[in-house]
């Protein structure tokens, strides 16, 4: 009996020890890639483009495949997650070790915290002098005078509209904001939604608000917003006027019923199914014109106009709401940092991201694309290029992305309350001011 006891005790002790060892785990396999003995290099790319067969994701994948073909010793592994999930995992990675090349957003709401944490590698601006970056596009990626990433797109806030529907009903593209509001009743009468709006997400409403604000303040937009964010005081008359206009727009039923609870897909569907006459979104949706899932008589009739001028506003019709959103950066602690930067630079060679992006109609890149025009572009694409080339001023980062992420979360939720009237304009401005402190 005693022997059995002894044997069993020993067995159980061993079992106990092994569970403890499992707990310790193997810490040597981090996320960042390693250099093999034979000179083989693996670069890990963490991307927010999950669809690898269409649009931007396809462009990214094409460049990766090309690079691996040119450099047989380099292997690039891609991990892709949707934006929300991407940002969450990005944060987890920043604590435990990041992949080598990552997608980032050149906006204070994302970049400030990340750069302060010291996880992004500094890039040399001189390397990119002949990469044809559009003027000012690197500003968002610069922190304390140092460059931490490169922008992929130039985004413009636009109204997509169904030209045929407009012509058939005798509606005109509005030149002033009052004309836009006037359209609301006319279009609603026909049982059609005037503007499809993704209000459930909060950020498109913020982009819209920023667009209206830019029309009021003109080139003072950035200073107005950054001052307000710095002091937490949003009582400036321009901010108040812009918010009141947004509220008036909502009250005039310019957006679909229940827009503040509908998501991106639902809003876009209203437009692409012909149930809405317009759709307010970024220029990245220009690929709608080539999307065969959309009925042909709608797809070929999509055109754009930018936010009309506001009475008493300082901005001209050609001053547009545009900014540089997503881009890429390199992990500061990557073991293959040099190789990763080499790959990053390859992606940004003018005939890569920019050219392929153009050919796939995925909107505008942050680099000069004029030399890739073939004349076979869709009307929509030509129109967008035209808008950008004729623009006199660009707004810069939308209001929600100019502060910390706490501010972003706050304004994106509060803006729904002010639009549907459950919060007054003043309460809204106070509430978002509080989030800045």
């Amino acid at each position, binding site marked *: *009996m005693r022997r*059995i*006891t002894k044997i*069993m*005790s020993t067995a*159980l*002790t061993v*079992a*106990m020890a092994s*569970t*403890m060892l499992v*707990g310790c785990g193997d810490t040597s396999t981090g996320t960042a890639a390693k250099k093999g003995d034979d000179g083989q290099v693996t670069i890990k790319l963490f991307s927010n483009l999950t669809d690898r067969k269409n649009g931007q994701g396809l462009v990214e994948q094409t460049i990766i495949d090309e690079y691996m073909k040119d450099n047989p010793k380099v292997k690039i592994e891609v991990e892709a997650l949707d934006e*929300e999930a991407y*940002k*969450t995992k990005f*944060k987890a990675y*920043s*604590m435990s070790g990041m992949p080598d090349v990552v997608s980032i957003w050149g906006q204070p709401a994302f970049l400030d*915290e*990340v750069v*302060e*944490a*010291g*996880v992004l590698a500094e890039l040399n601006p001189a390397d990119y002098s002949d990469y044809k970056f559009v003027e000012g596009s690197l500003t968002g990626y610069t922190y304390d005078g140092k460059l931490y990433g490169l922008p992929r797109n130039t985004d413009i806030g636009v109204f997509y509209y169904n030209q045929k529907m407009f012509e058939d009903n005798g509606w005109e593209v509005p030149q002033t904001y009052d004309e836009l509001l006037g359209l609301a009743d006319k279009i609603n009468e026909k049982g059609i*939604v005037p503007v499809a709006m993704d*209000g*459930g*997400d*909060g950020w498109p409403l913020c982009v819209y608000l920023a667009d209206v604000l830019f029309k009021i303040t003109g080139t003072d937009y950035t200073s107005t917003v950054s001052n307000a964010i710095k002091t937490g005081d949003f009582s400036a008359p321009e901010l108040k006027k812009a918010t009141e206009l947004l509220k008036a727009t909502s009250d005039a039923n310019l957006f*679909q*019923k*229940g827009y*503040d*609870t*509908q998501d991106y897909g*639902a809003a876009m569907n*209203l437009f692409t199914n012909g*149930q809405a006459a317009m759709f307010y979104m970024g220029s990245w949706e220009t690929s709608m014109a080539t999307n065969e899932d959309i009925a042909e008589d709608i797809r070929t009739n999509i055109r754009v106009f930018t936010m009309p001028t506001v009475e008493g506003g300082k901005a001209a019709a050609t001053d547009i709401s545009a900014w540089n959103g997503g881009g890429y950066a390199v992990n500061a602690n990557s073991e293959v940092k040099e190789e990763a930067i080499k790959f990053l630079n390859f992606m940004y060679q003018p005939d890569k991201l920019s050219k392929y992006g153009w050919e796939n109609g995925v909107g505008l890149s942050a680099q000069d694309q004029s030399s890739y025009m073939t004349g076979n572009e869709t009307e929509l694409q030509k129109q967008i290029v035209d808008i950008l080339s004729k623009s006199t001023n660009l707004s810069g980062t939308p209001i929600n992305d100019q502060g*910390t*992420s*706490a501010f*972003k*979360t*706050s304004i994106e*939720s*509060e803006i*729904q*309350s002010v639009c*549907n*009237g*459950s*919060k007054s304009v003043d309460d809204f401005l106070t509430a978002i001011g509080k989030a800045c402190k």
Partner: protein
Amino acid sequence: MKKLYSNKLVIFSLILPGLLLFIFAILAPICLSIYYGFTNYTGMGTYDMIGLENYKNLLHDEAFAISLRNSLLLAIGFICIQHPIAMIIAAVLDKLGGRAESFFRCVYFIPNVISIAVIAKLWGFIYNPNFGLLNNIVKAFGGKGDINWLDEKNAIWSVLIVLIWHGFGWGMLIYYTGIKNIDPTLYEAASIDGASQSQTFLRVTLPLMKPVIQVNVTMAVISALKQMETVYLLTQGGPGNSTQFAANYLYQQGFTAYRYGYGNAIGVIFIIICLIATVALNKVFEDRDEVRMRKHERDEEKRRNAMRKSVTVKNKLNSIKAVG
């Protein structure tokens, strides 16, 4: 074998896996949460200790207050609407018997089998003000059919209905099992005594179901407090913060607003509220007779001890006298 089980080392190694799991999966995260709750950690980089700042802010945080109110509403909805219906349906099912019983049991449980993501999308479409099913039904009955079911005023009720509907199957199944476990001879005895259907339900079924009800209600309250997935997928807590729930708010603050420290402070308050709720529920459900009996036993014990003491004192006195 008995000797083996009384070996301290063996006992220790047997409880160790469970203990380790508890320490690393529950206790350590709670301790870390408490620690981070005192910092301004963003989730990345360095951070400072800021004392009770997070908790002070939490006191004035309107969104957090709304999320607690909503959790309370949901808990009340669960207890007052979902559970009575679940119990009645379970009792009816029990009486049904045969094929109908298993058919309806299955039907009522279906919402629980469907993934939450599907449920949220499904109800999103049902509630859609432009082409949703609900508004079309209203139209069919002659209404205007332009109600926005998810606007600031209606949203919380619409969300509650989804949650109550979705969790209904579980509650019903547990009640159903509870009812099935009641000794049928009791019902026979009741019917011999001439008890009516409702009397049998109130006097036999209900009292015997008490432990089941206790478990079910506790689980309902906890699930109301930690509600997250459905709300996150259906409304993301909006419009504004009107359908905000504590767990969703915690996620938003911790992971999208980069206020990891603040998120942890919410987590700590959240744990405390859950604990209080559990203790309070246990108090509510404590068997009064049992309490009285336990108290009686304790008094009895005291009396006996006192008597024993006085007896020994008397004996001692007697022996002293005898010696004297």
